[in-house]
């Protein structure tokens, strides 16, 4: 396929990547993103090497300043001696499969400070992303990056889920009632561990904070994977204001998770979500294959056909 790294096996790439070769890291991420056998092999090789990195998800509406905030946050971390990495997810065009991945424009400060940034396209919403992102996080964790930040646009269930599968989930909103309502609709309220009111130098910032508080009062915060009432932080990412506060709150959240059982619960949830995504993917593939083999259906209702094929798939044993 392509170029210098292609000749190496996943294991060789991983050894080089863990030795600090950035191109090998990038190559592993490419293979994970493509899926298939190589991706499975990398998952196998990295799974036991992970668990160190604090995984932070950052999501919010388009235009909320997520990238600028992610840049400011990771720049601060890098300057403080940490080794942050970012996986920035942007949508693929549903028509052509292509994508314009523009997050690096706003993350230039971070890249100059040495942060490893990888842009990732959704490549269709068919669950590929839900497999690729955990795989990429695993590679970066195994290569010693900490924290690993996943940044996604908070529209679309898959994007929200991907960011939500983190130890600490940050939801970014901007001043203006509309944004908070939008966040509520997109289901972002339920997944947030903390909220950022970004662009806090604009009029309406305190209103946004109050709106969020009101909505949180009305939202039942429960369930095994999220337990605490989210903190609200105000930032003006373009000026770097409030970013230190945000980092402190993120670190506190992590510390609380580590001290208690929170982290284990979180990660069990995350693993379950990944298994679920993988299962959906495998069953989807099997369904497609069974349907293709069945050919045109005559003399059966759709329900009967589906049940018959499901029985065949489920009886088929090991799916690989």
């Amino acid at each position: 396929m392509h170029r210098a790294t292609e000749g190496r096996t996943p294991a060789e790439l991983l050894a080089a990547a863990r030795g600090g070769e950035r191109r090998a890291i990038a190559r592993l991420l490419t293979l994970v993103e493509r899926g298939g056998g190589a991706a499975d092999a990398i998952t196998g090789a990295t799974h036991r090497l992970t668990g160190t990195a604090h995984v932070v998800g950052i999501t919010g509406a388009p235009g909320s300043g997520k990238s600028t905030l992610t840049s400011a946050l990771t720049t601060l971390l890098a300057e403080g001696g940490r080794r942050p990495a970012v996986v920035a997810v942007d949508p693929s065009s549903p028509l052509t499969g292509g994508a314009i991945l523009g997050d690096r424009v706003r993350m230039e400060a971070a890249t100059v400070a040495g942060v490893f940034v990888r842009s990732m396209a959704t490549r269709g919403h068919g669950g590929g992303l839900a497999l690729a992102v955990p795989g990429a996080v695993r590679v970066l964790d195994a290569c010693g990056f900490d924290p690993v930040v996943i940044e996604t646009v908070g529209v679309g269930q898959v994007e929200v889920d991907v960011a939500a599968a983190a130890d600490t989930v940050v939801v970014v909103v901007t001043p203006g009632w509309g944004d908070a309502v939008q966040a509520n609709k997109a289901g972002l309220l339920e997944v947030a561990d903390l909220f950022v009111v970004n662009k806090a130098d604009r009029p309406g910032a305190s209103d946004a904070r109050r709106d969020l508080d009101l909505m949180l009062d009305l939202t039942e915060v429960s369930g095994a994977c999220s337990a605490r009432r989210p903190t609200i932080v105000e930032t003006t990412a373009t000026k770097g204001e409030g970013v230190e506060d945000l980092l402190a709150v993120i670190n506190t959240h992590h510390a609380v998770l580590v001290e208690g059982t929170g982290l284990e619960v979180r990660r069990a949830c995350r693993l379950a979500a990944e298994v679920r995504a993988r299962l959906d993917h495998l069953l989807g593939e099997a369904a497609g294959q069974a349907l293709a083999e069945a050919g045109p259906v005559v003399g059966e209702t759709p329900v009967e056909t589906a049940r018959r094929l499901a029985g065949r798939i489920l009886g088929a044993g090991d799916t690989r």
Partner: protein
Amino acid sequence: MHPDRRTLSGIPVDPVYGAGPLPGEYPYTRGIHAGMYRDRHWTMRMFAGFGTAEDTNGRFKELLRSGGTGLSTAFDMPTLMGRDSDHPLAIGEVGRAGVAVDTVEDMADLFADIDLAAVTTSMTINGPAPILLAMYVAVAEEGGVERGRLAGTLQNDILKEYQAQKEYLFPPRPSVRLVTDVIRFTAAEMPRWNPVSVSGYHIREAGSTAAQELAFTLANGFAYVEAAAAVGLDVDDFAPRLSFFFNSHSDLFEEIGKFRAARRIWARWMRERYGARDERSLKLRFHTQTAGVSLTAQQPEVNIARVALQALAGVLGGTQSLHTDSYDEALALPSQEAARIALRTQQVIAHETGVADVADPLGGSAYVEWMTDELERRAEEVFDRLDDEGGGSILEGVYAGIESGWFMGEIAESAYRFEREVNAGDRVVVGVNAFTEGDEGRSSRLLRIGQDTEDLQRKRLAEVRLERDGSAVRTALARVADEAGRPGANLMPALLDAVRTRATVGEVVEVLEDVFGTYVETAVV
């Protein structure tokens, strides 16, 4: 000028035809002067700049000798971006696409042996505009011409930089403060100077439609009016000196309609919304440049025809001054020969075609009047949107549109749509997607600026740095920083002091960046 005119066949023609409102009458749709070009031709202002200040000085003198009536300065990319020629990011760009100016010494060389009291000078500069204006004033005064006698135009239109040309230095709000500092300074001390040339040219070049160019440019004009009013100026104290700069593209009647609509909109908004009483505040004066983006690298000689027709649209639209592009500009900077043909094109229009004999000769044409109305209607839709976004302020609406990337998205969308039409063959570009035979033997007499210019300019800069009084520079820069941080202060006096000490453009910009911060665009692809 001769008062009476005849056609080539000897038929006498009147200065104007049709019913009112006539040219020179509100709302000035038909032109801002009653006599238009019969009284005075447009200014043939040719944009030039390359290499070192001496190189460009030579081109200026050549243009004045061959009948040009105004100077227009193109600065190189490092100067436009407020970086010195020895800045690491300047590598490969010093003197390449304009003239390099680092200090007041370069400005002095640029205008050596040119009587600054006798010419009008346009300077295409935006982010560092106040610094370059300070240098021009310093050079003139060192040569004995006081600032009040200087006539010319500073582009100084920062809003369109965020929207289109991307040569911004600081965030929008402090940048607009610099614009209003210049407006205050020239209103008080330079009565013959145009402090802002509100420019649609670059918006169009970046890919907008004619309607978008019209709407965004006038909105920016309104924004500056609001910004200047907000710092306490009376609208009639500065509005007469605001000027505009439009593109003239290939769709002849659309362009003419655009120019006519621009005048009408400006007059009405200035009177009705901003309360202007001075008639001069209502009259939209504009410079026109033919569309660089329309020039083709294929069969470049065909560009001479394109430029002639676009220039004609500018004249029929009532422009006050005109730059005609050179046919070789899709490939490189204009060569001297190509620049001369471009100027001659204007002279043909002015002296041979007769179009200058009658004011607004197309006024009353059903198509042209409809086009004018239609473009006005489309512009008003944009103003409504911005007014809403800004909560009753066009200035705030423009800020919001910049911060959200709205302008850039609209422009990028139009650019891509045009590209697709050309690629699909739905829009013919002669020599590119049709009539392509005959493209052999390209001219290779291109003007090339080499690495030696860059090296020479760095050497000159190093000499100035060595010879100047370093402590005087530091003191002056510290004052610039203080004034920048003081709300309500006007930076111009401190900038004048700083450039006189031979502080460089880059040094002043860095001091200002420390106070104002820098800006990363909202990338809308």
